[in-house]
């Protein structure tokens, strides 16, 4: 029986247009913040010139780098690539399933709600409302919306699969399935948090645990949000554009399963050379290196699909973009494992090399694939010809040149700064360069980078014009096709049990079990286990012979049964995370820590910490001193042995603030001990670390005042805004609920402690002759009364606390020896 089906191409058009619009906004934000790193005036001062002095200020809070970088990253990841991926998925899924999307209502909700989320992000992030974890910054009410929309998308997608009129699931659909379930898992776990107000929450994980969960998420956001859906798109659109089937379907099977299985394990490569347990670092490096193989398998499969169609590379802009995209994918996935080698990582990590790496993926892979797909789609969605091929070609070249400038500039900047920072004088006791020296040295590359990014943006504007003109020259159409309806029993006939409890799977699981036993069992018993495993292997082979090919059917049948397939994918991705995260969560508790244990923040310091998070200081500052000699020399405290960041030092940090990039110096050990009063007695809680309070005061007002050439934004406005002391009791309650061992404090205790510490700091500033240029009339007591309440003083309190720890000894020898990084080095 046949019927005619009209595809929902309206949703495809909408997502495509949204992607282009958000893409331009997101990239514009990127170019803007790139200029901020070279010209501090771009943090708000430029408005003073533009408006002829009508707007005043060295920095404007919602324009500072720390707040805008999350806007840029979230916009390009979730708005640009997100919408692009939805366009590609909606278009190809309908065709591969020979069915219209299951529900127009769900498609509409998906589209509009996703755009609303993006608008909400664009408002909250510059306003300083953030969770303080990279690419997971959105506040909890928005998180809930994201999850709900994702569920809507998933229901719509799987429902379409259930209604399909083609028994087999093409490889692109596998990649979409992996995307949908893995992103759901990662997103939910990394966003678990305890709200303290409608706009603020603390993540339930802290310190090391939070770091691990974060990079399990962060790395796999790259894998399952920026890679797998685009690979699905590659497997669909590249054959379409080249008009020939994919090079090797076999390779695509191996590609899919290896990629999905390996990727999820590689997260810890973001935490190499830290005090992280050695086995985790080892695991992260091992699996990152293994990623080389499937990534390149996929790249070759894509490129070789063009066999015999290479001539089109000269004439067809679509093929040009797709081929370049796949090539950049190969480049980025070559560079990634390289950077996951511990020794290379020692140099590359925290530098702009990493930023360059992620852009060869984002601009090269995601951006080029998006452009190729849009140029292919537009004429079909509007039933016309592409408005201008030359303009598309021009876009191609300008984008390619832009990317190359971008990446090369950041290679130079990253490697140079990395080398300079670790250069030790021949005496072996001092470092050759100050941090600021290295920053000044790479300025020229920062400017080149901003220029490369600008070129890429120009190219993208050309795409927008071209697509817009194309749309204007045609009419929006919905494709209608005749399809043969499929009987229910021709697909999805396999139950869960049939999928799992059958010969091949049962044999493999049993054999794996016995191999595991071989690892653990005492001598003799282990040999027996190994023997059984081998026997099972033989048994499997003979069963295979006897079954006459029934085994090989299993995978085929899985491919015609999306539910068991989905469960298997979920199992493959869930193993990695559980093995890495669960042991760490169990072992790494405050009560298990031996050695350094973090001192709790006083209420004022906690308030300061929330300001640090809210201002996005982590976008430039790390708080993680790695176990490398030059690093300990640079950031360690004089007279403290082994002064890298021990895991216990940040164990109560919700969220962790280890950071991933050092535009400024590491701050993990910026603080110091409780300060002495002039009479020799100790203050109750005021501390002084590497720098005095007044140094920080002037530095926050205008970093150039203390550090000429610095690109840190000026934070004078923090001395105008008041600390939210009223929120503190609720926040401390939340911290206690999360396991931070605060003593019982009444609201009045909290207010008192805040008042005392803030008075001490404010007094020390006034005594040091502080002068607040925005309010020159304030002096002496009036200045002190003004400062006491300010966010700036809370932030100084926090910065002076950084790195404070006490030594704890446990009665018994500590059992988790893996926490000691020295034991394996």
């Amino acid at each position, binding site marked *: 029986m046949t019927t005619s089906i009209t595809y929902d191409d309206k949703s495809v058009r909408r997502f495509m247009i949204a992607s282009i619009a958000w893409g331009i906004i997101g990239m514009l934000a990127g170019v803007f913040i790139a200029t901020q790193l070279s010209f501090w005036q771009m943090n708000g001062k430029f408005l003073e010139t533009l408006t002829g002095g009508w707007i005043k200020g060295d920095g404007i809070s919602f324009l500072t780098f720390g707040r805008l970088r999350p806007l840029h990253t979230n916009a390009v990841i979730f708005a640009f690539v997100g919408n692009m991926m939805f366009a590609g998925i909606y278009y190809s899924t309908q065709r591969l399933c020979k069915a219209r999307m299951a529900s127009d209502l769900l498609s509409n909700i998906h589209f509009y709600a996703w755009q609303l989320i993006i608008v909400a992000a664009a408002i909250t992030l510059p306003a300083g409302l953030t969770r303080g974890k990279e690419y997971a910054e959105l506040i909890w009410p928005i998180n809930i919306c994201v999850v709900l929309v994702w569920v809507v998308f998933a229901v719509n997608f799987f429902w379409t699969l259930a209604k399909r009129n083609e028994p087999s699931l093409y490889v692109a659909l596998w990649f979409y399935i992996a995307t949908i379930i893995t992103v759901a898992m990662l997103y939910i776990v990394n966003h678990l948090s305890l709200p303290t107000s409608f706009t603020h929450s603390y993540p339930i994980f802290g310190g090391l645990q939070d770091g691990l969960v974060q990079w399990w998420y962060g790395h796999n956001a790259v894998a399952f949000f920026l890679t797998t859906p685009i690979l699905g798109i590659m497997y669909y659109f590249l054959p379409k554009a080249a008009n020939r089937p994919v090079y090797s379907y076999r390779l695509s099977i*191996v590609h899919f399963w290896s990629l999905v299985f390996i990727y999820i*394990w590689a997260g810890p490569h973001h935490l190499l050379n830290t005090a992280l347990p050695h086995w985790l670092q080892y*695991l992260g490096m091992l699996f990152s290196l293994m990623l080389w193989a499937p990534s390149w398998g996929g790249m070759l499969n894509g490129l070789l699909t063009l066999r015999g169609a290479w001539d089109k590379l000269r004439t067809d802009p679509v093929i040009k973009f797709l081929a370049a995209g796949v090539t950049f994918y190969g480049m980025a996935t070559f560079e990634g494992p390289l950077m996951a080698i511990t020794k290379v990582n020692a140099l590359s990590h925290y530098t702009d090399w990493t930023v360059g790496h992620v852009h060869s993926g984002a601009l090269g892979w995601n951006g080029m694939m998006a452009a190729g797909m849009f140029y292919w789609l537009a004429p*079909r969605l509007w039933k016309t010809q592409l408005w201008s091929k030359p303009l598309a070609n021009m876009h191609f070249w300008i984008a390619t040149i832009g990317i190359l400038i971008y990446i090369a500039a950041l290679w130079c900047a990253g490697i140079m700064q990395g080398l300079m920072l670790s250069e030790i004088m021949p005496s072996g006791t001092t470092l050759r360069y100050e941090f600021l020296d290295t920053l000044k040295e790479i300025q020229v590359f920062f400017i080149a980078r901003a220029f490369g990014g600008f070129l890429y943006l120009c190219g993208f504007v050309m795409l927008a014009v071209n697509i817009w003109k194309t749309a204007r020259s045609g009419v929006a159409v919905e494709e209608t096709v005749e*399809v043969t309806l499929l009987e229910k029993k021709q697909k999805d006939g396999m139950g869960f049990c049939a999928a799992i409890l059958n010969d091949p799977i049962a044999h493999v699981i049993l054999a794996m079990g016995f191999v595991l036993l071989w690892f653990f069992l005492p001598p003799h018993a282990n040999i027996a286990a190994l023997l059984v495993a081998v026997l099972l292997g033989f048994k499997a082979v003979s069963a295979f012979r006897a079954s006459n090919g029934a085994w090989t059917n299993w*995978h085929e049948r899985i491919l015609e049964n999306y539910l068991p397939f989905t469960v298997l994918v979920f199992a493959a991705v869930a193993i990695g995370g559980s093995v890495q995260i669960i042991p760490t969560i169990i072992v790494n508790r405050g009560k298990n820590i031996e050695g350094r244990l973090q001192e709790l923040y006083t209420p004022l310091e906690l308030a300061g910490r929330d300001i640090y998070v809210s201002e996005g200081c982590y976008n430039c500052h790390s708080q993680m001193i790695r176990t490398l000699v030059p690093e300990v020399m640079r950031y360690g405290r004089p007279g403290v042995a082994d002064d890298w960041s021990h895991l216990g030092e940040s164990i109560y940090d919700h969220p962790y603030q280890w950071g991933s990039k050092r535009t400024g110096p590491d701050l993990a050990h910026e603080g110091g001990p409780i300060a002495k009063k002039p009479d020799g007695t100790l203050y109750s809680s005021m501390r002084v670390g590497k720098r005095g309070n007044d140094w920080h005061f002037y530095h926050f007002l205008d970093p150039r005042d203390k550090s000429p050439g610095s690109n840190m934004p000026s934070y004078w406005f923090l001395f105008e805004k008041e600390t939210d002391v009223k929120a503190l009791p609720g926040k401390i309650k939340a911290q206690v609920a999360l396991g931070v061992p605060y003593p019982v404090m009444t609201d009045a205790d909290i207010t008192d402690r805040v008042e005392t510490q803030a008075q001490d700091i404010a007094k020390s500033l006034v005594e040091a002759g502080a002068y607040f240029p925005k309010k020159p009339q304030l002096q002496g007591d009036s200045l002190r009364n003004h400062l006491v309440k300010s966010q700036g003083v809370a932030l100084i309190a926090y910065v002076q606390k950084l790195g404070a720890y006490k030594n704890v000894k446990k009665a018994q020898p500590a059992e988790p020896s893996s926490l000691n990084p020295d034991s394996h080095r």
Partner: protein
Amino acid sequence: MSDFKRVMFEDWSLWIPMVSFGIFFMVFILISVRAVLINKTETDRLASLPLEESSPETLNPRQS
């Protein structure tokens, strides 16, 4: 063999990467065997799925 095991597994945590790798390796072998054994007509049919039902613009809508 037992020396190897002692070196590798003296520390409880180091077996995790080994086991992880082992599990992956089995999955990899299984999938590779599967991929090699799959028959040619089947892969050809699967590979040409996206090329069916091409839009009118496509010059050669069916490839096999």
